[in-house]
């Protein structure tokens, strides 16, 4: 029983990190119908931005919750800027071009960031210094809960709450939903679609940046290629939840995190990625639009 609870906690904290990345995929897809493959690399940039902030500010010597929050905000700001630049330089010139062109550009941006990262940061893994170091684990007999896992869960939930607020309670959020619904109609209503698209990239990238820092905190090994697999899994999570739907992305990511954890624990860790993706395929066979995806009628 205790082992089961332990696995649930592990799975939730893994899933909440996927969720932060998955939301960026789903937001961009909702608005542009574009799978932004460079998103996993934004997450990597977030981890490295956090790494350098911790170093420069000397947080490693006196870790605290405040230091973690400052690092988080700095990395999110950096990633928002990075997301803005990526959209402006790589995707905006291709607005109106066939989707496949933009998709290939996205793959190109992703590879560009991976290899530039190796050049700038070095290809050897770096140790992410402990920016927040709570006292020893909370223990209930055999059950050990790392406070960092709980912190990750809380921080990502709060961030997603903020996102929900922005999307449904502010003018920018309403404009985003309008653009998602229909670009041309939104423009007719006086919404600057380009601006809203930029905002979308910035929000999504900031969340990925936060995920990067949280990963650095929990698994203190970061390297320029770290975004590849989590990026792919988060994308899968977004599809699982119904791509374009923010709540769905969250749900899909948590589900994927738990599925991975349980498959590794009770079945075979060797095939955990394969099994996790097999579950994904199964769900999509039964419900092709994903868990919360709405059926879209093709306009002819």
């Amino acid at each position: 029983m205790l082992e089961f609870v332990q696995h649930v906690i592990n799975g939730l904290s893994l899933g909440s990190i996927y969720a932060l990345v998955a939301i960026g995929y789903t937001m961009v897809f909702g608005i542009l119908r574009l799978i932004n493959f460079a998103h996993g690399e934004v997450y990597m940039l977030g981890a490295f931005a956090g790494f350098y902030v911790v170093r420069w500010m000397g947080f490693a010597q006196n870790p605290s919750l405040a230091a973690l929050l400052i690092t988080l905000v700095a990395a999110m700001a950096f990633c928002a800027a990075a997301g803005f630049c990526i959209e402006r330089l790589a995707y905006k010139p291709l607005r109106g071009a066939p989707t496949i062109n933009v998709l290939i550009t996205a793959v190109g941006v992703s590879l560009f960031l991976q290899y530039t990262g190796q050049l700038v940061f070095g290809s050897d893994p770096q140790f992410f210094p402990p920016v927040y170091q709570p006292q020893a684990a909370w223990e209930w007999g055999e059950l050990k809960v790392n406070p960092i896992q709980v912190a990750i869960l809380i921080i990502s939930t709060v961030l997603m709450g903020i996102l929900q607020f922005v999307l449904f309670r502010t003018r920018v959020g309403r404009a985003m939903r309008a653009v998602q619904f229909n670009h041309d109609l939104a423009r007719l209503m006086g919404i600057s679609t380009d601006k809203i698209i930029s905002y979308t990239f910035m929000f999504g990238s900031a969340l990925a940046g936060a995920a990067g820092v949280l990963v650095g905190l929990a698994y203190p090994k970061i390297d320029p290629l770290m975004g590849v697999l989590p990026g792919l899994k988060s994308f899968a999570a977004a599809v699982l939840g119904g791509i374009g739907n923010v709540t769905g992305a969250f749900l899909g990511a948590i589900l994927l995190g738990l599925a991975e954890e349980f498959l590794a624990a009770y079945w075979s860790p060797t095939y955990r990625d394969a099994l996790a993706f097999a579950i994904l395929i199964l769900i999509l066979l039964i419900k092709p639009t994903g868990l919360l995806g709405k059926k879209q009628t093709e306009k002819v």
Partner: protein
Amino acid sequence: MASFTMRSMLSVFLVAALLTPGCRKKETENVIKVGEIGSMTGAEATFGLSTHEGVKLAMDEANAAGGINGKKIEVISIDDQGKPEEAAIAMTKLITQNKVVAVIGEVASSRSLAIAPIAQQYKVPMISPSSTNPKVTQIGNYIFRVCFIDPFQGTVMARFALDTLKVKKLAIFRDVKNDYSVGLADFFKETLLAGGGQVVADQSYSAGDMDFKSQLTAIRTAEPEAVFIPGYYTDVGLIVRQARELGLTVPLLGGDGWDSPKLTEIGGAAMDGTYFSNHYSEEDKSPQVVSFIEKYKKAYGIVPNGISALGYDAAMVLIDALKRTKSSSQEDLRNAIAETKNFVGIGGKITMDENRNPVKPAVVIKVQDGKFRYTATVEPK
């Protein structure tokens, strides 16, 4: 204008074409070209870079001492980014374009297995500094290595667990994507079972995973007295950290893939009380080790790790063989390497056996307070 540019370009080409063969010929007369393939970027960059530093140190020394019979050695190093397919391209390029006489590489067994068939096909001797998987030298009679092999390394750690740590119930945690790790785990298991030990859990992971807690939780449930984790330092740091977080306080054991300063940097205090088998210890007081460390420090400002020592050994064995080779035929060079006997290397005396594997001892290192402490030497039987 256009035709003028064309003409000037043409003349440049012609002049270059006239000059190049002359230069080339002169160069090849006084230079022996040796190839080196390593992962100098990518996830295992430390391996490639450390090897390169060791190789370069040996070659510079040989050149400063007058080279081989008056000829200088030129090392052509190619980075394979840690990818087997890139390594294969590099090997083909070194042999067909650069016309090297021998190749030093690769560190990782998975990549050595990719390049060895090419070296064998062109009959160019290849010396792997640190690929410990037995299959590597089985590919052909032109493939050598200067490190011990996995059966020996697995045996060393199993014997160490049984005899020195006095434990019988062990768990194994292997990297299933990695030939090296799987091989080590299998040989460890074999020796352990033969010695009266017991494997209570055999879990696996894939290199590059971040979260190992589910497998480690399962290992913890089996209550082993020690865990054998034959992985690379890139993953082991995180694994050990998470193992300690979950309250797995028993000794953790590993192989030479642990040998990197990054290990303790990533693993931190969690690494205390772990052991791994290695090719040499910097605390070894034999004269060749002391002088090697001194030279290495002077050249690079750091203490060499086991991988650098093996890079140095591989280069020294090749230099020694080149000196003994009278003709310039590939076959003579191969025979000279095969005849290497009692060559004093940094990792102990090297004698090539009939399978082109050296017979040499291993050391067991203990990690304590972020330092690698010499614990024991295990001689081959």
